[in-house]
């Protein structure tokens, strides 16, 4: 066991060690959380423990869009009010949350679970691109919206998918790349500024 966690009683040090493995939690935060949990009523800690166990027991990937879900198909795919002719392609399940928050998109999603990254040896078949093409072949899709991250790997992945989808006669669009709201021209990088200038829109 890590000597950093030793001075406490054994169950406590075990909890500290586990919390310390979480992203953004250092040894000091882990200690604080552990002692906080110690003082919380037992039913609250049980709720937390059960919630953690439940995500591993009940969750799986939606067989259609590969989003993380507890029902198959997932809530979005099963929702009859959504536009089934448009698919928005994202890198990770977590990317769906901010897009849903905008309430600007009422279509369906497709989660790739990664991006093509030649330097790390991540190839198209390591992602769920095949499943996307299957969906396109079997359904009446009119638009695929590529919403991968605007960085080297995300762009490469989008260009690759565009090449596969365009020949099917389906419209392929890419999320606009431009200036972030609340941002500052002075600090914008050149790629963003170039794209923002290219993609400028008439004010009406």
């Amino acid at each position: 066991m890590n000597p950093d966690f030793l001075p406490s009683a054994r169950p406590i040090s075990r909890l500290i060690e586990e919390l310390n493995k979480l992203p953004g939690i250092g040894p000091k935060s882990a200690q604080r959380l552990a002692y906080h949990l110690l003082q919380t009523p037992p039913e609250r800690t049980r709720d937390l423990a059960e919630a953690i166990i439940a995500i591993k027991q009940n969750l799986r990937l939606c067989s259609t869009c590969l989003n993380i879900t507890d029902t198959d198909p997932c809530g979005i795919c099963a929702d009859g009010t959504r536009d089934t002719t448009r698919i928005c392609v994202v890198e990770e399940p977590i990317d769906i949350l901010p897009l849903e928050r905008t309430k600007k998109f009422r279509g369906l999603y497709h989660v790739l679970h990664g991006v093509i990254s030649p330097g790390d040896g991540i190839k198209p078949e390591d992602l769920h691109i095949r499943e996307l093409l299957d969906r396109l072949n079997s359904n009446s899709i009119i638009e695929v919206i590529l919403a991968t991250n605007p960085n080297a790997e995300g762009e490469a992945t989008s260009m690759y998918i565009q090449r596969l989808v365009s020949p099917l006669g389906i419209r392929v669009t890419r999320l606009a790349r431009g200036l972030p709201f609340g941002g500052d021209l002075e600090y914008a990088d050149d790629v963003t500024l170039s794209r923002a200038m290219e993609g400028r829109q008439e004010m009406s």
Partner: protein
Amino acid sequence: MAARVYRTTGIIIKRNKFGEADRLLTIFTADHGKLRAIAKGAMRPGSKLGGNVELLTHSQLMLARGRNLDIVTQAQALDIFLPMRDSLELMSCGFYLSELVDSFIEENVEDREMFELLLDTLRRLTETGDGERMVRFFELRLLGHLGYTPQLQKCANCDRNLRPETNYYNPAQGGVLCRECGYSDMSAGTISVNAQKVLRLWQRSDIATAGRVKLSTELAREIKGILRDNVRYLLEKQLKSIDWLDRLAGDSSLNCDKAVTQNSNGSQE
């Protein structure tokens, strides 16, 4: 004591996630060689580092010395090679170049010549849209710079002048072998007269001249196979991005690599 903050320019050749929103960059700098540094908050939208420390950007950098890793305090892109980013082929060449440099170059050793070569290659690739030849030229020059200049004038084994004919090539011997020496060398593959000519020319020409050399598809494949074998021999591994490059180039070039191996197998008989 060295200054706490220093300024340099560099090309970002690798970047990993680090913590929640930070990036661990591998930068090939002009003055300090390859180094690793943290770009804090670079993954947040609106970060003033963000796009200025993106993969394969040439940037002006301010770094602060840290206990383990240095920290990027300011970054301003000098060249973003925009046309490269709009082309899947060119960007893939870029991925390959960055992996190549990261694999061969030692950390914290100043290497201005290599830095300039990488910068020139990226610029040329962006201007001409000709990824393939630029990458080959880069590979050949990289080998030379590391002290593995392929021997192309004389037989690498018996030192006799090479006749203008199909000879053999073996990276382990350090270059071209004459027919007599090559024939009995189990691990040597053949090299055509034209491939020998192109490699000789590239060894002494600048990048602009190198880009003007016309290569038939067949010759381009042959040279690709030879230089790749050489790189693989020196690294003792296959670079990860090669699979991807082959896939993009289509099945034909995958066959070409097989042809090269078949050649070397052929000479075993």
